[in-house]
C-alpha cells in the first residue's frame, strides 16, 4: 500500500488548511452491497472508494472484531457468516448461523457474536474463535435489531412481526423482559451511558426510547417533514453521538436523517441524504457519520459537529450496512 506516515502528514496539512472540522486520520469504512454480493472499501479521509471486493450471497449486517482484524458479515442467502481480513480482504473463515442471518452484534469483550436469524425466530450465539454455536435463544417472529448494553450484560433483540424489544440476559441467555413497541421494529441502540435504549419502528414511523433499568418507555419520537407523506417516513438506523447528546435516525424512503436531542426527544433538524437510508456508522473519532443509501447506490457523509451533509460517495448496488475501522 502506501506510506502511512507520509500520508497522515499530508493529511494533517490538508485538514488544517481546508477542513478544520474533519478527521485528521484516515479511517477505513466497509459497506455491504446487498445486490452486488460485494463490499466497498472507503478511505474516510479521501472520501472515496479505494477497493471493492466480492463476498458471499446477499451481504447485509456487518461488524468488526474487537481488534478490527476481522470483518464479520452476514451473507444472508448462504445462511452463514463470513469473516474477512480487514487488510487483505481475503476470506478467513465462515461461522455458522441459523437460516437467513441479517444483523449481528459482538459482546463488548470481543466474543461471542449474537446473530438474528429472521427465518426461525431465534437469536444464535456464536463463539467467533472456535466457530461453534453456543446456544439459540427463542424470541419473537422475525428477529432483527441487536442492541448490546455498554456493560455487555443485556442484549436487546427486536422482532419485526412480534413488534417487541426482547431484553436478554447475556449470562443466562434468557429473555427476562419484553416491551411492545410500534410496528416493525428494526434497530435497538443503547446510548453510551446505558441509560437509554432507542428502538426504531419502520412501519409505525416512530422511535421508542426505553429506560433499560425498569424497561419503562421514556418517550416516543414522531417525525414530520413538510412535503413528505407519513407513509414514507420509515425509521431504521439509529446512532448516538459520543457525548450522548444527539441521536441520528435514518428515515428510509424519506431520504433524510433526523437529528434528535436526546434530552428533550425533539427533532432538531433533518439532513437530506441519499435514497432509502437504512444503516449508519460513525468514524471512530465521531466526527463523521456515514449512511448507506439503498436505492441511490451511495453513501452520504455527514459532518457531525456542523450537522451538514458534505459528500455522497457512489458504492455498489443496494448498499445495506456500514462499519468503520480505526485505521
Amino acid at each position, binding site marked *: 500500500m502506501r506510506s502511512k506516515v507520509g500520508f497522515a502528514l499530508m493529511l494533517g496539512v490538508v485538514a488544517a488548511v481546508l477542513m478544520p472540522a474533519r478527521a485528521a486520520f484516515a479511517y477505513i469504512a466497509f459497506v455491504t452491497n446487498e445486490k452486488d454480493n460485494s463490499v466497498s472499501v472507503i478511505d474516510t479521509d479521501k472520501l472515496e472508494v479505494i477497493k471493492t471486493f466480492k463476498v458471499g450471497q446477499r451481504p447485509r449486517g456487518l461488524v468488526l472484531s474487537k481488534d478490527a482484524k476481522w470483518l464479520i458479515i452476514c451473507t444472508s442467502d448462504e445462511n452463514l457468516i463470513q469473516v474477512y481480513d480487514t487488510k487483505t480482504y481475503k476470506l478467513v473463515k465462515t461461522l455458522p448461523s441459523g437460516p437467513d442471518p441479517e444483523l449481528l452484534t459482538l459482546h463488548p469483550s470481543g466474543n461471542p457474536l449474537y446473530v438474528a436469524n429472521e427465518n426461525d*425466530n*431465534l437469536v444464535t450465539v456464536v463463539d467467533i474463535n472456535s466457530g*461453534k454455536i453456543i*446456544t439459540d435463544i*427463542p424470541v419473537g417472529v422475525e428477529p432483527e435489531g441487536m442492541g448490546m448494553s455498554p456493560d455487555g450484560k443485556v442484549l436487546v433483540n427486536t422482532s419485526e412481526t412480534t413488534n417487541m424489544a426482547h431484553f436478554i440476559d447475556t449470562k443466562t441467555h434468557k429473555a427476562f423482559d*419484553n416491551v*411492545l413497541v410500534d*410496528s416493525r421494529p428494526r434497530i435497538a441502540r443503547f446510548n453510551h451511558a446505558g441509560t437509554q435504549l432507542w428502538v426504531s419502528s419502520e*412501519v409505525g414511523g416512530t422511535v421508542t426510547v426505553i429506560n433499560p433499568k425498569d424497561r419503562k418507555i421514556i418517550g416516543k419520537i414522531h417525525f414530520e417533514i413538510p412535503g413528505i407523506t407519513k*407513509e414514507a417516513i420509515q425509521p431504521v438506523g439509529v446512532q448516538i453521538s459520543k457525548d450522548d447528546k444527539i441521536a441520528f435516525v435514518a428515515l428510509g424512503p424519506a431520504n433524510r436523517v433526523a437529528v434528535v436531542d436526546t434530552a428533550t426527544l425533539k427533532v432538531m433538524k433533518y439532513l437530506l441524504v441519499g435514497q432509502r437510508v437504512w444503516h449508519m456508522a460513525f468514524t471512530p473519532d465521531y466526527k463523521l457519520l456515514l449512511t448507506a443509501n439503498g436505492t441511490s447506490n451511495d453513501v452520504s457523509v455527514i459532518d457531525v459537529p456542523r450537522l451538514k451533509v458534505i459528500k455522497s460517495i457512489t458504492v455498489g448496488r443496494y448498499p445495506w450496512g456500514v462499519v468503520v475501522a480505526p485505521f
Partner: protein
Amino acid sequence: MAAGVRAASSHHGRNFATARFGLALMMLVTPVVAGAAPALAQETPAVEKPAAAKPAAEKPATGAAESADTSANDTAKKPLVIPIVLARQLRDEPLPLSLLDLPPPDLGIAGAELAVKDNNTTGKFMNEKFTLDVIKEANPDKLIKDVVQKVDAGDHFILADVAPDTLLKMADTLANKDALIINYGAPDDRLRQEDCRADVVHTAPSRAMLADALAQYLIWKKWNKWFLVLGPQEKDKLYADALKRAAKRFGAKIVEERKFDYKPGSRRADGGYEQVQKQIPSFTQSAPDYDVLVVADEGNLFGDYLPYRTWDPRPVAGTAGLVAESWHPAIELWGGTQFQNRFKLMADRNMRPLDYNAWLGARMIGEAAFRTKSNKYKDMVAFMKSPKFELAGFKGVGLSLRDWDGQMRQPVLVAAPKLLVSVSPQPGFLHQSTVLDTLGFDKPETKCKAYKQ
C-alpha cells in the same frame, strides 16, 4: 415454474436439516460447559421445529426476577385464550385453465394457520394463546348454523371465505351477538357499499381497489385506450364494472367491449392449443385502435388464452397477463422474503392472495389482543376500528381499516406471472389524507350506512 419453486424449497429444507444436526451435536456438548445447561437442554428441542409450531405449553418468558419460580406460577398465570373460527363455504366452481392455478385444498386456510403460529410466538411473551377452528361446508345454512354455535359457545372472531349472500346472511344472524366477521374472500364492492354491515370488516381488497390499482399503472404507462373483454359469469361483469369505474376515474377510455362466451367444460384436452390459436386472433380482430386489452375473467377460464394471441400485438391486463392483487408468490420487498419462506416451510407451496388476506385477518386479531392486552371482544374490536390500529403486512406501510366501510386500506401489487411489475398507488395520484385511499371507494363516495361516520 412450479418445479423450480419446489426444488428451491427442498434445497432450503436441506440447509435447515444440516443446521439442526449441528445444533443437536452442540447440545450434547453444552451441558458440560455452560452453567445454565440443564434448562437449555430441556428447552432446545423446541428449536427442532420452527418456533411457531411449538405447542403453547412452552412457558411464557417472564421477568428475570420471576423466572426462577415460573413453575410455581404456571397454574396462576393461565394464558388468555383467543379462539378464531374460519368459515369456508365450499363451492362447486370450474377449474382454472393453468395447472399452476389449480386451487390447493388449504387455500386461504394455510394463511390463517401461519398467522395463528405467528400470533402464538408473540403470545408466549404476552401470555396469550390463539386457536384456529376450521369449518368447511358446502351448505350455506349449515355453515351459518355451525358458526352461530361457535359464537354461542364464546368465540368472537370469524374469518370468512364465503359467497356474498352467505356473508350477509351470516352477519344478519349474528347481528345481536358479540361477533366480528373478517371477510378475507369476497371482493364484492356491494359488501362495502349498499350491503355493508357494522360487524363485518374486509381484509380482501375490493374489486374497485384492484381495478383502480391496475388503472393507475396503465395510466402511468400512458396506455389510455382499453379493449375490454369480459366473460359470461356474474363476477366477470362485476370486475368489468370496476374496470369501467376506474377508467372513468383516472381518465382511460374503453374503446371496445366484447363478451367472450365461453362454455366451461374440461379444462384441458390432449392437445388443445390448436383450436385456441385460431380462435383468439379471430375473436380480437377488427377492434378500434387500442393500447391494452383488459380482460375480466375472475375464474381464469379463458383469460390466459389471450396473451400472445391477440390479432393486434398488444399487452393483456386485468385478470390475466398483468394483474392487480393483494399478494404475489415472488414478492421480496419489505422483508417479504422471510414471510414467503415461513409460509413455504409450513404449507409446502407458494403463498397466494387468498392466503395473504386470511393471514392479515388472523394477524389483526393478534395485534388487537397484544395491544389491548385483552381477549375481550369489545376492547379488541374498539381497538381494531380506532385510529391507533396499524398492521404491518409486508407492504412497506401500516395497514388500517377505513372508518366508513371497514375495508382494510393497503397497497396493491401490479404483477406479471413471475415477477412484480409495480405497486399502486402510483406516483402522482394524490389524496388529502392518505394516498392509499385513491384505491377503492373513498369516504365521499361511500354508500355504507351501517358504519357511523
